[in-house]
């Protein structure tokens, strides 16, 4: 699954790192490092983390696998 965090909004509350510790990790006291491509097995935890973000800064894909680019220059 795909995840992106708007780190300009993130204030380091670490709620995501509590709820999905394998995907969201605190680097020091306040800085968030995360896996933007976690395994689907983590989906439940990631959705919990996204819901709990006080800044609502975590975006999880809405349409995995659909609408991929087609017709590249090589085709």
């Amino acid at each position: 699954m795909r995840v992106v965090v708007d780190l300009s909004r993130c204030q380091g509350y670490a709620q995501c790192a509590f709820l999905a510790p394998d995907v969201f990790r605190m680097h020091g006291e306040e800085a968030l490092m995360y896996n933007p491509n976690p395994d689907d097995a983590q989906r439940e935890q990631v959705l919990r983390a996204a819901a709990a973000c006080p800044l609502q800064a975590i975006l999880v894909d809405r349409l995995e696998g659909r609408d991929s680019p087609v017709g590249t220059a090589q085709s």
Partner: protein
Amino acid sequence: MTSADTLKRFKSDGRVVIVGASLAGLRAAETLRDEGFTGSLTMIGDELGEPYDRPPLSKQVLTGWVPAGGTTLPRRRDINAEWLLGVPADGLDLATNHVHLADGREVPFDRVLISTGVRARPWFVETEAALDGVFVVRTREHAEGLQRALAAGPSRVLVIGAGFTGSEIASICRERDIPVTVAELAPAPLVGALGAVIGDVAADMQRAHGVDLRCGVKVTQLEGDAQGRFHRAHFDDGSTIDADVAVVALGGIRNTEWLRDSGLAAGPWGIACDTGCRALDLNGLITDDIFVAGDVARCPNPIYEYRLISLEHWVNAVEQAQVAAHNMVSAQADRWPHLSIPTFWSIQFGVNIKSVGVPTFADEVVVTQGSVPDHRFVAAYGYQGRVTAAVSFNNAKWLDHYRQLIETAAPFPPPCPTPDEPADAKPVPVDFPGPRLLAQGATVVVTGHDPGERRVTAAWQHR
């Protein structure tokens, strides 16, 4: 036909082309569909593959945690676009409304969004840049290559340039226990963006984490061995250092060359636009159908005396894309101005560095909260008696307050004490190295005498 009818028809079956299929391009496309644009949408990008996120490339990817291919951006919605990827645009014809691609194709449009971003500034000697072990970091291929080089356990990494990207890479090297030398022409890291006071803090942080930090030096030569592998760097003071990896982190070059004959106000400083993200032409007149967003846009900010400012900030790309897309499908009266206060972050040496405002638009700086030695503080920047920016080190929860101070042109230094104000807090000169402009480069000449014939001509310089 009224303009309302024209707009309605454009929204239902007009043609939008987005040049630059990265963060700004993708978010613009999503916003267009959100706003009910049902016409044709074409995404043009010079890289293959879906739009991906770049900030992790100098962080999670280089630690080895996340594969370089794992930063594909999540989608907010279906965009139903035609994707033309792997080939750059090389021209824009405003007489016929076509984008020219490098492979000769021409793509017609009614409205176009330019979000071609920046590329890494390469090492200035081409043969040296081509040595094995010499890297820049901008694309995922770059990051993947550098990650592999770091994983191989180099004896030493040389980072050239101690801006944010260079500092983040040095931090990762120390995290991976790799010896690292950082060479910076300025007197301290981050000094060009944040000034001398914060630069000194950044220097402390680097040294405390075991970085061999060399400031005020210039790398003059990258030397390869017989196999074409980088193995030694020469400095302008005559000294040398042996290393297996050199990372060139000297900032970016805005991708505007393809617009040189377009008649737009495009140059090395970006593409000038209004706060509605509509491009200006060379004469500084507003265009109707050409929009700009992201790193390549050069947009006026009323808070900063309406100066044109280019920002290579993640959230700036997102917000400009949304404003540009909204305005592409809106009547004049419904258009939005892009008026955000710039926001930036960097993660290095276990510290979350964040800024709001434009720190380079300042003459003084004062630490308002926390402790500089503990690397937990907020510093406010002021210009002629008002707050124009703030920077926090592991103190991001307060920055919203400083954003409000900037928005309300609050007095500088902030007059009211806080419980965690340092005892010796007093404003000092912000001290940027050399004459600092928000961008540089003379790029046009003006010709003609009568008001009716005064015109601007681009003067492309060799850079």
